[in-house]
C-alpha cells in the first residue's frame, strides 16, 4: 500500500506541471473564446457564443479543408520517407544505431522557426539552390519553389519527420527478429514477409507516427506563413491572425477550441485502435 502511495507521490510534480501549464491555459482559452473585445482590443470575459457561430461561417471551410489536406499529404510523405529510414537504422544501424537516432533528433536543437527561415534563404528565386541550378546550366531559369503549396507541405514534412521516424524505429527495434526469419523459413518472398510479418508487427508504431505528425501539421502556421503564398492559408494562420493581426482574441480562442475538438476525434480513434491492439496482443 505504501509503495502505491509512494508511486502516487511521484505523479505530483508532473501533475502540477500539467495543471499549471496545460489545464489553466486551456481554461483561459475556453474562457476567452466566450468573451468579447473592448475598443483597445483587450479581451473582456463574458458570454458571447456568437464567436463560435462566426467560426462556422462557410467562408472558413476551405481553410480547414486545405489544412487537413496539407496534413494528410505531410503524413503520407513522412511515412514514405520515414519508414525506410527507421527500418534501416533499427535493422542495419549496428553500433551506429544510437548515433543515427541522435542525428534524426539533431535538427530539434535549432528552433523550427529558424530552420524554416533557412529554407527561405535556400529556396528563394535568386537563392542558393536556384543559383546553383542556373550556374550549373541545369536550367536557364530557376524554379519557383517558395510561396507554393509544395513548399508548405515540404516545410511540414521537414519539420515533423522525426515524429514519424522515432515511433516506427521503436516498433521495428522491439520486433522479434525471429519473426522475419520464420517468414523466410516458410518461403516468404522479402515483400510477402514484409507485408505479412513486419508491417503488421510495426503497424502500431506507424499509427502513432501518423497521429504525431498529423496533429501538429493541421494546426501549424509557420510553414504556410514563411513558405506559403497568398492561397495557402491554413487554420493555424487564421488563428494566429486573430491574435496578432485582428485584435480578436475571443474569435481566435473559439477557432482554437473548435480545432482542438476536431483533433481530439482523431486522437480518440487512435487511442481506441491502440487499446484494441494491446488487448489482442495480450490474448
Amino acid at each position, binding site marked *: 500500500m505504501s509503495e502505491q502511495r509512494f508511486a502516487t507521490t511521484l505523479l505530483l510534480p508532473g501533475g502540477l506541471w500539467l495543471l499549471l501549464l496545460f489545464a489553466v491555459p486551456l481554461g483561459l482559452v475556453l474562457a476567452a473564446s466566450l468573451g468579447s473585445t473592448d475598443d*483597445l482590443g483587450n479581451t473582456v470575459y463574458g458570454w458571447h457564443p456568437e464567436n463560435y457561430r462566426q467560426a462556422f461561417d462557410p467562408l472558413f471551410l476551405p481553410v480547414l479543408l486545405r489544412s487537413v489536406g496539407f496534413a494528410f499529404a505531410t503524413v503520407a510523405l513522412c511515412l514514405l520517407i520515414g519508414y525506410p529510414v527507421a527500418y534501416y537504422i533499427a535493422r542495419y544501424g549496428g553500433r551506429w544505431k544510437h548515433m543515427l537516432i541522435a542525428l534524426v533528433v539533431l535538427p530539434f536543437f535549432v528552433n523550427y522557426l529558424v530552420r524554416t527561415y533557412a529554407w527561405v534563404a535556400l529556396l528563394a528565386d535568386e537563392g542558393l539552390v536556384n543559383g546553383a541550378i542556373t550556374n550549373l546550366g541545369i536550367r536557364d531559369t530557376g524554379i519557383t519553389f517558395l510561396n507554393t503549396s509544395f513548399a508548405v507541405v515540404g516545410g511540414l514534412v521537414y519539420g515533423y519527420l522525426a515524429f514519424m521516424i522515432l515511433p516506427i524505429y521503436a516498433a521495428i527495434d522491439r520486433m522479434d527478429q525471429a519473426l522475419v526469419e520464420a517468414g523466410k523459413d516458410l518461403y516468404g518472398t522479402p515483400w510477402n514477409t514484409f507485408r505479412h510479418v513486419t508491417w503488421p508487427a510495426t503497424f502500431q508504431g506507424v499509427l502513432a507516427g501518423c497521429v504525431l505528425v498529423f496533429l501538429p501539421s493541421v494546426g501549424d502556421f509557420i510553414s504556410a506563413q514563411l513558405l506559403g503564398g497568398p492561397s495557402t492559408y491554413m487554420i493555424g494562420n487564421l488563428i494566429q*491572425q486573430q491574435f496578432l493581426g485582428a485584435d480578436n482574441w475571443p474569435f481566435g480562442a473559439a477557432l482554437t477550441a473548435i480545432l482542438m475538438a476536431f483533433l481530439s476525434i482523431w486522437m480518440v480513434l487512435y487511442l481506441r485502435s491502440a487499446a484494441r491492439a494491446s488487448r489482442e496482443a495480450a490474448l
Partner: protein
Amino acid sequence: MLRDIDDFLAGRIGRRELLRGGAGLALGAGLAGCGLGDSGSGSKKETEKVVKAKPDGDLVYFNWSEYLDPALIKKFEKQYGVKVRQSNFDSMSSMMAKLRSGNQYDVIFPDQSYAPRLIAANQLLKIDHDQLKNYDNIWDFFHDPKYDPGAEHTVPYGLYATGIIWNEDKISGMTESWNDLFREDAKGKIFVLDDYQEAIGMANLRNGFDLSTVDPDELDKSKQMLIDQKPLLRGYSTDDIQNLINGNAWIHHGWNGDVVNLRNQVKNPESYRFEKAKEGIPVGTDTIAIPANAQHPGTALLFLDFMMDPENASQNVAYFGYPMAVKGAEDAFAKIAKEDPAVQITLDDVTNGQQYAYLTGEDKALWDRTWTEVKAA
C-alpha cells in the same frame, strides 16, 4: 519561452531579415505555449511617475527590423554603458498583441494611428520635456501633433509614404498607379504588404474611396478587389527589402524609405525604384514612446534624447531612408531626395495627406473582418 526565441533571433542569428517575420511568429508560438495573459489598460497614475534621464539598466528595445541604424545602437551602448536588448515586430497589430500579452519594453515605435490607442489606454509614460536636452531640436509642428496633443507621450520618428517599389531589371513600364500591383505580366512576382491597414487602404484608394472608409459597401468592394488580385500575387509580406533582394518580388507594395535602405544593401542600387500612386497614397508618422510599465524608463529617456540629437538623426536618416523631424537632420534627407525625388516626403505631405484613421469598436472590427476574409479566401 517567448523571450528566448526573441533573444535568440535578435542576438544570435543577427540576420536582420529574420526578424521582421520572426517576432510575430515567435509571439504566436509563445501564445500557443503560454496561454492568454491580460494586461488591459494601465492606470493614469502609472503614466505620470517622475523619471530622470539617467541610466537605470539595459534598454529593452522593440521596433520594426531594419528601421534604425545598428551602428547607433552600438554608439548608444558605449556612450551610456548599457546593453540594448533588441526584438522586432512585423506589424502594428503584432506590437499591440505583444504589449497586451504583458511583455515589458523600454522603447516602442507606434505610428500615428496606434499612439492614440496606447495613450487612451494609459499605456505610455508621460515624457518630461525638461529631461530631453534635444527636445527643442524637434520640428515645431511635432511639439503639438494631432495624434499626441502637447507631445506628452511620444517623440516623432520617421515620416513615411506608402507606394510601390520595383526592380527595373525585371520589369518596366510602371504607371504611377496602384494598377501596377495588378499587372498580369508580373504575375507571381507581386507582393502586397501583410498589414490590414495598408492592404485595405490600397484597395480603397484604387477604388476611389476614402483611405479610411468605414462604409460596409465600399469595404466589401475593396475586399473583392483584393480577393480578385490573389491569383496575381506571390504573397503578403511586410519584408519588402528582403523579398526584392532575393528576387521573389519584382513589384512590392512598400514604404518609401525602404527602397533607400535596400539600395544600401545591393550591388545594383539604380535598379530599385519607388513610385507614388496618383490615386493617392497613405502617409504617416512613426513615433518613439516609453510604455508605462517600462522597467528602465531612465535609459529610455536617454535613448529618445539620443535619437533627437541632430548628428545621430542625420546618420540614422542616411541609413534607413526616411526623414526625421529633427532640426539639423534635414540635409541628410535632402541629399537622398535629390538623388531620387520619388522618395521625397515633406511635412506638408504628412499634414495634408491621407492618414489611417484611429478606428474603434464596430469600425475597427469591420476592417479586421474584411482582412480576415481576404486572407481566408
